[in-house]
Every structure is written in structure tokens, then in C-alpha cells.
């Protein structure tokens, strides 16, 4: 008796295709055969598609580059044009879209600007279709349209919706074009594109698994009806889809023009060679910029869910642990290993392997390989270790992913530091970056919009977070986000048109950038007033209890976060009586000013920076706190004049000039600060003496810390984090116990911590304990 899969395989082998005319790959092959051959020959030879030489590029380099420029220019042009179709400010204002061109077997050839993490995710969707014999059923035909946003296929998170269009030439598949936009709502259990409420897949939003949604370039009626009934903010969903389809069709036309001009055989040679060229280029960059060896780092992000109204099994305070080791091999292969990452959890912050492997290129294209040849060549020059069962690779289809960036941005920060140690060693100081901010808060909510329809919002102001400091200058303030190199905070007027929230302020937040010789780019706050709300709710999503970076070479991490909201306020009366009311930023949380000019039944001023939906009315107030970046170098080495300037510009509170930077400042007649350099020298001498007095040799301290470990003196969430890593990784456990020289019997087990272990599958202690 044969299984269904065996039957399908037999059908493919025999060429019996139910819904298509036959294999659509090159030379009569199926796509599955093509995929297998590419993988095998690339692995065997170490060159993409076995290309030890690049005959086309080497024999006719001008023509080769001409084709590249035409395609690259075309995909960028398609992005810029198509985004004008969208109404969502996330796409139209923030540029949260991207287009990429693929080989028939799903390797990326050329990519537009924008959210280029999707180089890999859309490739993963095409690979999924190939793996699941879409060629047979539902069939892949010219002018078909497919859609995917399934996290477990390899998406980043549910709101990134892909449109995939095959490109045929005379009955043969010559490639795919994919377009992605970050959609404002995908029908999760709470509104907004990066919800906190969902804790499992079935609350994570409407997930479409590589579905054929159109034929003959027309979207199917059943698809249009079902999809628009499955999400909130339907007009944005609809116009986003038109954006993606328009861009894909522009690029398909471009590719067909190139094929008409150059011939299909030239195009076929080009797409293979450009990927191998990308691989070689990446290897060359590694040798040019880095030092071979090993680089280690770690980051954390807090998940304070114990008191949130979520399912019982999700009510856990936990920490997402992201250790990473970059190994630069002798042959310039770049290996990134996340061994030791702890278990996935019941929250929407889990990730998929593709989101981390593909997402790496968002970062590398901003630092190690800052060129326009973003394709899968770099993927073939690198290697990743992503432990199964960890939050980077959940071993359970139920895991939720709606807000995976909560953890991904934390996991990336140590990678900047690792690469920066190389740049520093080689003298490329201009490339050093102390890390990235935790690019939050995500201010989200939803209800009935101004037009009477279901509405959802996700303010993308965090696209303008602080940047990490470099080795030669301060990080850029309120300007960028790791995940979108074109980050922008968006115009207040546009946000106010689309959100029932009026601005009471947008202001730099002093102390949010990490201190250092060079200061981390500063974060900022905006303050929003409910205005025109109707059945409305709001919630926040950001880091709170923890800093998600370390600073570099003596610099401090960017500040952690907190939330502020005031509900059932007296602002209506205050406005009527023209009394003072909260404005600007909460510039000094030690001496909060807002609370003196507002009365409210409820004020949240705490570290619960991930929250679930809370009812929000007109005259309620909520803060959006956009984080700062980490600093570089010892703060005592900062030019005193720059510290005074920081105070004048609002980046540093006056009292921290002396405490952190050792700089004496004096206030002038008009409130301006200047540095007293003579006094500064003395203060700095004293601080160095204080350091000598208060510190102890690291090895002495290690003895004290070992005692605390032996006595298990740490909070439940800290112990839970270690237990989740120990259960998955023998290597991490051995390194941990080896470092502290712990006795064989010492261990922390998840099941001993009085927290739910629901859904914990892989556990290397289960049999041994």
C-alpha cells in the first residue's frame, strides 16, 4: 500500500500532473529536482550551482553588469512606485515593503531596498511550495498569484504578507517575484500588527499558507471575501495587497523585457552567476574587514507575563536568552551559532530560523556588505547554528510569532559588537557600532475607526530609535531602526489623521542613549491624547526590566524602558479651564512633572512594558517611549564640551554630567551650561580613585558569585532562563558549570521552579534526572 506522498512522487516521476501541463522547470525537470540539484552541487563544490568560474561575467562583464543594473534598478523602482498605492502609513510613510526576484528554485537574485529581511522569507515560501509539490496540485501557471504569511513556513511574523508571482517564458518557469508589506492588522486576538495578547498560533492572526489566490492576473473572489472578513483595517489590507501585486507585475514585465532583449539562455546564465558572484563578494568582504577567530556575546529581553490576563500556562515571567558566537573561519566562512538559546515560550516573541538567518542580512547590508548585491550568495557563504526547541526554532506548531522583533532586535545587538571588535582591530573605526537599540515601543491598539469601520494601529515611531555609538562619533539620535535602513518617525500630522490620538508632545529623552566616550544615539518620547476614540483599546510592547545590549569597550547600554498611561483623567476640565496639562516628554522620571498636572483614576508608571488591551477613551493619555542606543568607551574620556552641549540639547540631565561623565558644569544666565575643564580634571581623578576603592579583582568576585549560584540566590525568572538553556544544550551547561567550577550534582530544572512547563518538549534531563 502506498502513502499519499509516495503516490505524488510517482506522479511527478511519471509526469502525470493533475492540474498543470507537466514539469515547469528547466529542461523538463520538476522544480523539486532543480532544488535538489542546486543544493547538492553547491554543497559538493562550495560554489553556488557548482560555478567554479563565471564564464558570462568574465567574458562579457559590461553586458553582465548592464543586466544587473537593469534588474536592480527595476526592483527598486517597482518598490518606490508601488508604495504610492498603499494607504497604510507603515508602508507609505515608513517604507515597510520590499520586492525580490528569485530563481525558479527559490534563490534570491536581486532585491529592492526596504525590509530586506524578506530576501529569505519569501524564498522559504517558494521552497515550501516546491517541497509540497505545488507543481502538481494546485499547479503553478503563468499569471497565477500566491499569498503566504504563515510564520511556521518561515515568515518573520504574521503581519508580513507575501505576494508571489511566477514568471514564465514559453511554458518554462524562469523565476519568481515576491513582494511583501507589513500589514497594519492581520486579525490576531488583539488589534495591531505586532500584538502582545496572542500566546499561541491560533491567536496570532489570519495565517495563509502559500495559497493560490489568483489566476490570469485576477484575484479570486473567494479570496477577497474571506481575507477581508478575517482582518481589521480592511482598506489598508486591500491597498497593501494591490501594492504588492502592482510591484510584482512591474518586475515580471521588466524581467520579460530583459529576456526578450537578451534571450532566455543568457538570463539563465546570469541568474546563476550573479548569486555565485554575491557569494564571492561576501567572502571577499569578510577577508577585507574582519579578523579570523571567535567573537562571543549575549543579550536578553524580558517577558513579564506573570500578571497579564493571558492563559494560565502563559502567566510566567521569563527572559529570552540570546548567546551568540561568531566564528570567522580561515576560509572566510562566517558562522553564527546561537547554542545556549533558551526555550521558546507562550508569547508572541518567538522566531523562526529563517527570520534570523534572513534577518542577518538586514544588518550585514548596513555594515559588513554595504552594497546592492543583496541576494542568496551571502547565504551560501555562511553557516548558522539554531537550536531546535529554542525561541529561535520552536519545536511546536502552536508557537506564536506576531511580535518576534521584541526578541530579534535583542539577539542582533551582540553581533554588531562582535563585528565591531574586528573593525576596531583592523583600524576601520568608522564602521564600529556599539549595537542597536531595542527598537521599541510599539504603540498599538484598535477599535472603531473614524469611518465607522474596524480599525487597528501600530505607530511606527520606533523606526526612529537611537543608533549605537561608533569608535569615533556619537550614535545618531532618534533616527533609525535596525530592521528598516530607511527608518523614519513619520509625520505627526499623518499619524493624527489615521489614529484617534492627538500629540501632546514629541521630545528627546535625556539619558536614553548609553553613556560613553561616544554617547549612544538618544531615544525620545511622544505623548498621545485619546481623541475621537470609539470602542477603543491600547497596549504597549517594549523592553522594560532589562537593557538589551551591553555597550562596547567601556560604554554603557542604552536605557531600559517603562510605560506611562493615565486613564479616566480630568483633562477635559483642565482644557476648558485652560489649566496646565502634560506635554512633551517625561524628561526626568526621578522627578515626574506630568503627574502634577493631571488627575486620573489609573496611572501606570511602571516596568510593565508589554501589556494587553486596555480600554482607552477620549482624554486618556499614553506615552510612546522610543529607546536609545548603546555607548562606546569610558564616559570619563568624553570631551567635557560635548557633555555640556548634551545638556543644552536635552540629551543628558545636568546631574549626570558629574556622576557619569565626571564633568563639572555650570549654568549660565540664560540656562545654558558650560563645562569647567579644570574642575573636571579633579573630579575625574577622584572617580578613578573611587573605582579602585569600590572594585575587587574579578577572580575574588567570582568566588562570591559562585556562592550565590550554589545557594541558588537569583530571582525565579533568572533561574527559569538558565533552566531553559540547560534543558536544551549540553554544551551551554558544560561551559556554564565549567566556568563556575560547580559540583556535578548542581543543576536548575524547569519543573522545580513552580512555573508551568506546558509545551516543553525537548528536555535532555527527562531521562537522566
Amino acid at each position, binding site marked *: 500500500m502506498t502513502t499519499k506522498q509516495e503516490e505524488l512522487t510517482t506522479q511527478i516521476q511519471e509526469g502525470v500532473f493533475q492540474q498543470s501541463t507537466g514539469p515547469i522547470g528547466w529542461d523538463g525537470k520538476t522544480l523539486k529536482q532543480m532544488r535538489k540539484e542546486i543544493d547538492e552541487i553547491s554543497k559538493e563544490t562550495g560554489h553556488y550551482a557548482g560555478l567554479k568560474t563565471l564564464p558570462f561575467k568574465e567574458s562579457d562583464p559590461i553586458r553582465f553588469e548592464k543586466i544587473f543594473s537593469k534588474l536592480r534598478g527595476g526592483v527598486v523602482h517597482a518598490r518606490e512606485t508601488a508604495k504610492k498605492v498603499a494607504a497604510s502609513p507603515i508602508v507609505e510613510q515608513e517604507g515597510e515593503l520590499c520586492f525580490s526576484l528569485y530563481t525558479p528554485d527559490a534563490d534570491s537574485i536581486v532585491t529592492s531596498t526596504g525590509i530586506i529581511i524578506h530576501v529569505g522569507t519569501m524564498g522559504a515560501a517558494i521552497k515550501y511550495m516546491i517541497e509540497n509539490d505545488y507543481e502538481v496540485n494546485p499547479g503553478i501557471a503563468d499569471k497565477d498569484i500566491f499569498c503566504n504569511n504563515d510564520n511556521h513556513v518561515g515568515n518573520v511574523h504574521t503581519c508580513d504578507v507575501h505576494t508571489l508571482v511566477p514568471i514564465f517564458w514559453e511554458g518554462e518557469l524562469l523565476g519568481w517575484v515576491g513582494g511583501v508589506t507589513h500589514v497594519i492588522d492581520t486579525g490576531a486576538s488583539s488589534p495591531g500588527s505586532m500584538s502582545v495578547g496572542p500566546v499561541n498560533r491560533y491567536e496570532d492572526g489570519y495565517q495563509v499558507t502559500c495559497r493560490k489566490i489568483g489566476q490570469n492576473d485576477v484575484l479570486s473572489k473567494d479570496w477577497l471575501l474571506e481575507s477581508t472578513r478575517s482582518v481589521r483595517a480592511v482598506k489598508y489590507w486591500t491597498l497593501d495587497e494591490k501594492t504588492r501585486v502592482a510591484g510584482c507585475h512591474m518586475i515580471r514585465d521588466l524581467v520579460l523585457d530583459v529576456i526578450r532583449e537578451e534571450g532566455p539562455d543568457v538570463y539563465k546564465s546570469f541568474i546563476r552567476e550573479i548569486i555565485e558572484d554575491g557569494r564571492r563578494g561576501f567572502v571577499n568582504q569578510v*577577508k*577585507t*574587514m574582519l*579578523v*579570523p*577567530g571567535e*567573537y*562571543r*556575546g*549575549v543579550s536578553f529581553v*524580558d517577558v513579564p507575563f506573570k500578571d497579564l490576563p493571558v492563559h494560565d500556562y502563559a502567566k510566567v515571567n521569563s*527572559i529570552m*536568552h540570546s548567546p551568540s558566537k561568531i566564528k570567522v573561519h*580561515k576560509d572566510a566562512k562566517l558562522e553564527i551559532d546561537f547554542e545556549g538559546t533558551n526555550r521558546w515560550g507562550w508569547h508572541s516573541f518567538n522566531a523562526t530560523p529563517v527570520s534570523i538567518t534572513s534577518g542577518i542580512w538586514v544588518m550585514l547590508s548596513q555594515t559588513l556588505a554595504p552594497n546592492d548585491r543583496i541576494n542568496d550568495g551571502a547565504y551560501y557563504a555562511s553557516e548558522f547554528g539554531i537550536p531546535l526547541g529554542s525561541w529561535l526554532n520552536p519545536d511546536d506548531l502552536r508557537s506564536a510569532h506576531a511580535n518576534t522583533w521584541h526578541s530579534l532586535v535583542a539577539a542582533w545587538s551582540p553581533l554588531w*559588537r562582535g563585528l565591531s*571588535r574586528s573593525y576596531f*582591530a*583592523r*583600524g576601520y573605526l*568608522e564602521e564600529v557600532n556599539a549595537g542597536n537599540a531595542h527598537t521599541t515601543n510599539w504603540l498599538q491598539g484598535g477599535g472603531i475607526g473614524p469611518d465607522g469601520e474596524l480599525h487597528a494601529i501600530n505607530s511606527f515611531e520606533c523606526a526612529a530609535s537611537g543608533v549605537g555609538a561608533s*569608535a569615533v562619533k556619537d550614535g545618531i539620535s532618534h533616527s533609525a531602526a535596525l530592521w528598516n535602513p530607511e527608518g523614519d518617525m513619520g509625520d505627526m500630522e499623518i499619524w493624527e489623521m489615521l489614529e484617534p490620538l492627538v500629540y501632546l508632545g514629541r521630545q528627546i529623552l535625556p539619558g*536614553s542613549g548609553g553613556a560613553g566616550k*561616544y554617547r549612544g544615539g538618544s531615544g525620545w518620547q511622544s505623548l498621545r491624547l485619546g481623541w475621537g476614540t470609539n470602542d477603543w483599546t491600547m497596549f504597549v510592547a517594549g523592553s522594560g*526590566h*532589562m*537593557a538589551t545590549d*551591553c*555597550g562596547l569597550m*567601556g560604554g*554603557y*547600554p542604552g*536605557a*531600559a*524602558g*517603562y510605560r506611562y498611561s493615565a486613564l479616566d483623567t480630568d483633562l477635559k476640565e483642565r482644557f476648558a479651564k485652560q489649566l496646565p496639562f502634560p506635554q512633551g516628554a517625561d524628561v*526626568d*522620571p*526621578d522627578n515626574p512633572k506630568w503627574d502634577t498636572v493631571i488627575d486620573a483614576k489609573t496611572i501606570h*508608571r511602571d*516596568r510593565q512594558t508589554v501589556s494587553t488591551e486596555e480600554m482607552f477613551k477620549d482624554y486618556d493619555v499614553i506615552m510612546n517611549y522610543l529607546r536609545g542606543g548603546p555607548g562606546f*568607551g*569610558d*564616559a*570619563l574620556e568624553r570631551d567635557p564640551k560635548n557633555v555640556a552641549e548634551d545638556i543644552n540639547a536635552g540629551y543628558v540631565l545636568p546631574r549626570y554630567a558629574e*556622576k557619569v561623565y565626571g564633568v563639572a558644569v555650570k549654568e549660565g544666565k540664560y540656562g545654558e551650561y558650560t563645562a569647567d575643564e579644570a574642575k573636571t580634571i579633579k573630579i575625574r581623578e577622584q572617580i*578613578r580613585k573611587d*573605582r*579602585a576603592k569600590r*572594585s*575587587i*579583582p*574579578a*577572580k575574588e*568576585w567570582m568566588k562570591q558569585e559562585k556562592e*550565590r549560584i550554589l545557594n541558588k*540566590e*537569583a*530571582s525565579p525568572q*533568572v533561574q527559569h532562563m538558565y533552566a531553559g538553556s540547560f534543558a536544551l544544550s549540553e554544551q551551554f551547561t558544560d561551559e*556554564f558549570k565549567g566556568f563556575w567550577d560547580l559540583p556535578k550534582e548542581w543543576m536548575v530544572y524547569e519543573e522545580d521552579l513552580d512555573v508551568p512547563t506546558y509545551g516543553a518538549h525537548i528536555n535532555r534531563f527527562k531521562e537522566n534526572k
Partner: protein
Amino acid sequence: MAKYNKKKIGELIDGTLEFYELKDMMSSHKDPERFGTYMSVLQERVTWDDPIILPAGLHLYIVQKASGDRIVKCDCGHEFCDYKDNWKLHANIYVRDTEEKMNEIYPKLMAPDTDWQVIREYYCPGCDTQLEVEAVTPWYPIIKDFEPDIDTFYNEWLKIPLPTVKA
């Protein structure tokens, strides 16, 4: 391809280049001569004679000793350990593990919560410079940030001789 003299690299190290100059540097292909020029500027600036093999961080260098050892050394002259060891284990440490200690650096609520995370500051025992900061959970092993493969770097990548101690 861009090429920079010692003066320009000195200004880069000092952080005194104008932004447009930095921007040009960042946008240009990297200059292969950079490492040699950078090393010669650094060597001239330190007060000791041990040849620098590789900068290991701000103020820190891996240097060649006459004995053949490769040592991590601060520019103040303090010698930490063999380069394959973790210099932080030989530094002085101060841990910010209370709200009060955190509040010296960050305003309230903007510092990590010490039930979740502490800040470790590593100082040079010779000059008390803060050389590295870790923001980690309690119990976290001291991180060995960087272990370069010096021989591959010089012999196979740069194809230049390793610095030697003058007789």
C-alpha cells in the same frame, strides 16, 4: 581606491574628522593599507616598546614579548594575561546590583531592574579606566569577547610577517 596617510588615521583615532570625511571613508572601498598605517600610529602613541600585534579594544593591545608570549596589555602599561586567556578575569570588577547603584547611571525606571539584570564594570588595575561593561543576568559567566586567530590573520590573510621584538 581611497588611501589615507598617518595624519588622517591619527585624526580618525582621535575622533576629530569632520562628518563628511567619515562619510567618504564609510562609502569608499576599504583601503588595504589601513591596518599597517593604523598599527604604526598606535605603536608611536604607546609609551612602551613591545610590538603591537593586534588592538584588542579601546586601550587594549595584544603585544609580542621577547619571551615569545603574546600578552594583553593596557596602554597604561598594565599587563593582563596571555591573549588566549580572558583579560576580564584579571581586571577589577564593580557590579551594579541595586537600584541605588543603577540610579547613579540612569534615571529611575530607565535602569535595568536588578532582579532581572546587573551591570558589571571592568576596570584596568593599572589606570582604573573602564574597559568593558556587561549587562547580564546574575550568575552569567564572564564573557570572553574575542579570541583572534592571529597566525591565520597575518600568515594567510594579510600575508605579512608578524611583528617581532627588536634585538
